């Protein structure tokens, strides 16, 4: 067990390290070289000594432009390890860490709420579909779920914006809360936040509940047909007991794994919805930074998203053995259940959501 | 010339570990056109033996020789000759045929590979191979998938795949234990007739003494336990006069299709103890044997010759003989 935890921790650390490295090389060595580009642009603005320019660049990117690459790399790693992600190119007075920390709560609120709603809705629907899987209604729901999961979430966002925000003015177009309220634990503020959240959350839910429903249906059906369920019925156990302890538990296990994993992926998938609704989360800042070539903010956002995914993975890996005795027991197989499973929260795609958990 | 020889072969599935070997010091000779049956409970190493003979693994220790050549040293043409000459028929015809490959494509590629057919007439050759095992190999049949065949038909296809290469030795690993009663004898008879017409030798692996007696009536039986050969001898001799208590136990435990005889045999049965792990020292059966004495628990028994090639590893084969006699294993009433 200790070895298992150590292996998982080491794996997570390796990924984070790798992403930081990728991020360094992208900024430093890719065509166009962001660092020299910034240097050049500062020089062309004039009014700064070469030392000042170097100083400015190193504050923004965390590396001294003309030192050897390995030294730049080491200092970059050191900075990141201390939580210093540099400063925004556009607005050098603002640190990247500050921007990201300001954006993070909004993304967590948006993604967390949307994920919970679509998870609960989807698994409930999926379980119902599995129970009444021969009925016409099930086929209809299954059809709707398939269509919904195939539609890209940004298109739903656009339609919602167009229909409910711009045309009819039912909901606000942008922002996380109204400019008229002061942030704080006031009713007005919370109400405003919820009001602003309705559309972006809906955009998520509409496009992701179908994936959950289909995955839950597949998982439940394979459990319903499992031999141990028939045996439990032959023991004369009550329907409620069979449903809860035999079908329910076993079909929910993979869903719980997927939920934790989606948490990470939804943060990544938030870029479109946040951008369209001008919702000040991580995704919004990522796209802002991309469009304005603000590489330090861009890489900061990317690193944070990766860390979110890594943490979610780590959480699943560490927590799963507690729920599923088949993992991390001497006779158990490989620990990582994830990966083989479809991840419906990934957005409109999510290959494998059709193939079901059995595949 | 020996067809196949095992010289003190031992095998561990996880090399380098001090764990129990799947096979321990097994020596065995198979002559051309001979039937050698291997009997034992599940986990006794009989399947491992079959896989080693078929060349799926190399033994951890000891030597396997095919036509007096060590398998390890086979190269090029000789290796190909061995691959063609030793074939395997599995137990489960549902698992041994690739569900995504048609019957024709199951048989043909190896025929082409070994030069028994050319690419353009591989279909005809495959049909001929299927015909030889009693299947009506129409072109339509060649295009079918395994799931469209019955269990008996599938096992015939698996046999056709093995014998189509004109092998000299076929390892049949529980090849009939999953078949229906009415089909089983037909498949056993097919294997026996192939032996007669094609000079085949068989390593016939089974846990059922009934099937073994029928199939290996003119051959030899090897009884295995925990990877060790505890008794071997000519079929009738071994069944009539079993010398190892484990053999007696196996023989007594096979029910026969005769209620009166079953009842009678039951009265004198040896007590049945299922073993977990074998004992660390001494005879591998000593912790389950009703006749075990101190010497059995401490010292590995020697191999005793009882004449006519009947050999046993036991300290007190006499006791087993008496126990076997009293249950009237072979003397019909």
């Amino acid at each position, binding site marked *: 067990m200790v070895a298992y935890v150590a292996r998982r921790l080491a794996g997570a650390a390796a*990924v984070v390290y790798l992403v930081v490295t990728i991020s360094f090389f*992208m900024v430093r060595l890719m065509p*166009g070289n962001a660092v020299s580009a910034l240097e050049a642009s500062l020089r062309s603005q004039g009014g700064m000594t070469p030392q000042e320019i170097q100083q400015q660049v190193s504050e923004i990117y965390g590396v001294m432009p003309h030192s050897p690459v390995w030294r730049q790399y080491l200092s970059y790693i050191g900075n990141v390890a201390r939580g210093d992600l540099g400063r925004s190119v556009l607005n050098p007075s603002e640190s990247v860490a500050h921007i990201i920390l300001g954006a993070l709560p909004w993304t967590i609120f948006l993604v967390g709420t949307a994920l919970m709603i679509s998870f609960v809705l989807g698994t409930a629907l999926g379980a119902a579909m599995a129970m009444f899987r021969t009925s016409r209604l099930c086929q209809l729901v299954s*059809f709707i779920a*398939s269509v919904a*999961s*195939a*539609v*890209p979430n*940004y*298109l739903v966002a*656009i*339609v919602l914006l167009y229909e409910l925000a*711009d*045309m009819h003015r039912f909901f606000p177009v942008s922002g996380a809360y109204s400019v008229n309220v002061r942030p704080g634990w006031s009713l007005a503020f919370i109400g405003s936040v919820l009001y602003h959240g309705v559309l972006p959350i809906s955009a998520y839910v509409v496009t992701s509940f179908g994936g959950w429903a289909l995955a839950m249906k597949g998982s439940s059906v394979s459990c319903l047909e499992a031999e141990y369920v028939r045996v439990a019925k032959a023991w004369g156990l009550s329907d409620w007991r069979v449903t809860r302890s035999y079908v329910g538990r076993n079909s929910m296990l993979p869903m719980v794994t997927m939920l934790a994993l989606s948490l990470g992926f939804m*943060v*990544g998938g938030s*870029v*479109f919805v946040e951008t369209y609704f001008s919702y000040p989360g991580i995704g919004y800042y*990522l796209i802002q930074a*991309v*469009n304005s*070539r603000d*590489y330090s903010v861009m890489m900061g956002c*990317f690193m944070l*998203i*990766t860390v*979110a995914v890594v943490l979610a993975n780590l959480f699943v890996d560490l927590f799963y053995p507690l729920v599923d005795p088949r993992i991390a027991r001497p006779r158990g197989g490989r620990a990582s259940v*994830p*990966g*083989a499973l479809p991840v419906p929260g990934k*957005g*409109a*795609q999510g*290959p*494998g959501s*059709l*193939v079901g958990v059995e*595949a | 010339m020996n067809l196949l020889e095992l010289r003190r072969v031992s095998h561990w599935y996880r090399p380098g570990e001090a764990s129990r070997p799947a096979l321990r010091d097994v020596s065995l000779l198979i002559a051309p056109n001979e039937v050698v049956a291997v009997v034992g409970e599940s986990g006794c190493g009989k399947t491992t033996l079959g*896989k080693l003979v*078929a060349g*799926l693994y190399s033994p951890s220790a000891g030597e396997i020789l095919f036509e007096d050549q060590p398998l390890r040293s086979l190269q090029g043409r000789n290796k190909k000759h061995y691959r*063609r000459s030793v*074939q*395997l028929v599995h137990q489960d015809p549902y*698992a*041994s*045929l*690739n*569900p*995504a*490959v048609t019957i024709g494509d*199951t048989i043909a*590629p*190896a025929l082409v*590979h070994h030069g028994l057919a050319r690419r353009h007439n591989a279909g005809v050759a495959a049909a001929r191979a299927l015909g030889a095992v009693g299947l009506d190999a129409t072109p339509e049949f060649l*295009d079918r*998938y395994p*799931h469209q065949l019955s269990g008996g038909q599938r096992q015939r296809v698996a046999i056709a795949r*093995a014998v189509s290469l004109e092998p000299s030795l076929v390892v049949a690993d529980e090849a009939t234990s999953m078949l229906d009663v009415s089909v089983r004898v037909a498949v056993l008879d097919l294997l026996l007739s192939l032996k007669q017409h094609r000079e085949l030798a068989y390593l016939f692996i089974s846990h059922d003494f009934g099937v073994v007696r029928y199939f290996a009536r003119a051959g030899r039986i090897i009884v295995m336990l925990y990877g060790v050969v505890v008794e071997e001898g000519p079929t009738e001799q071994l069944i009539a006069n079993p010398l190892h208590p484990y053999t007696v136990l196996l023989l007594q435990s096979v029910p026969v299709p005769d209620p009166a005889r079953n009842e009678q045999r039951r009265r004198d049965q040896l007590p049945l103890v299922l073993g977990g792990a074998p004992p660390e020292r001494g005879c591998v059966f000593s912790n389950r044997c009703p006749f075990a004495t101190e010497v059995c628990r401490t010292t590995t028994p020697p191999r005793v010759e009882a004449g006519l090639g009947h050999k046993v590893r036991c300290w007190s084969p006499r006791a087993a003989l008496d126990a076997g006699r009293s249950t009237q294993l072979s003397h019909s009433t």
Partner: protein
Amino acid sequence: MRRALRDLWRICRSDKAALAGGLVVVLYLLVAVLGPYLASPGGLQSPANANLGPSLQHPLGTDPLGHDVFASIVVGTRPVMLVGVLAAGITVFIGVAVGLLSGYLGGLVDAALMRVVDIFLTIPGLPLIIVIAAIVHTTSPVVLAVVLSVTAWAGLARAVRSQALSLREAEFVEAARVQGLPLGQIIVRQLLPNVGPYVAIHFLLDVTGAIYAEVGLFLLGVAPITGTNWGEMINSAMSEGALYSSSSVVYLLSPMAAIVVLQVAFVFFARALDTLFNPRLRSQ
């Protein structure tokens, strides 16, 4: 192969949604190949041609520059499909190759490849694609396809590996080994037919995934605009203020409908394949 097609046809006949999906996919493919020969969006000859509503001459009206919207969609099919199919092809090729090698060979090769796969599985795909696209800023469909498949292959590789692992132990593979068939033949003739169906389904879903990401890149303006495509159409419709007026709503919604119909069609067609290749369902 003939049998598979016949079965596919049988399933499509009983599953209307799958049939419709298959037909739509084929139609889109035809349009992608022939599109530029069939239609031309035209251009602004006079301001009177701009922002027209649907008519016989312009079934979906015209955009603010006087281009025919329907023709733009037809012409815009090719770049979208091309990149989608290319990206899915790259994904499937790498995924299957890595998965089969890793699973069948096992040992050190497997351990090394799987570490790489694990890392790529963990890195969030979409943000990475956006970041790379922003940095490389390519106009080449091949490079774009490579960028789009940068992480997608890992999931397939993992799935194919686990299948190859169990297939390696399968008795029919043992039989092929006993017969002395060479490694290449075993992989191609024994393993591939078994993972093939899964891969085919994955391919279709990968196309939808790639198109989702690709259109998204154009929408966000991350990928440089080159000629007509659906994402660019939506993007320019929005920047022309389509969100705030009802006059250009057709211009905004038509390319979106084109994408949605294609994505849904792919998903339903993939479902038919799933039925086709699932022996349990097939036998019924």
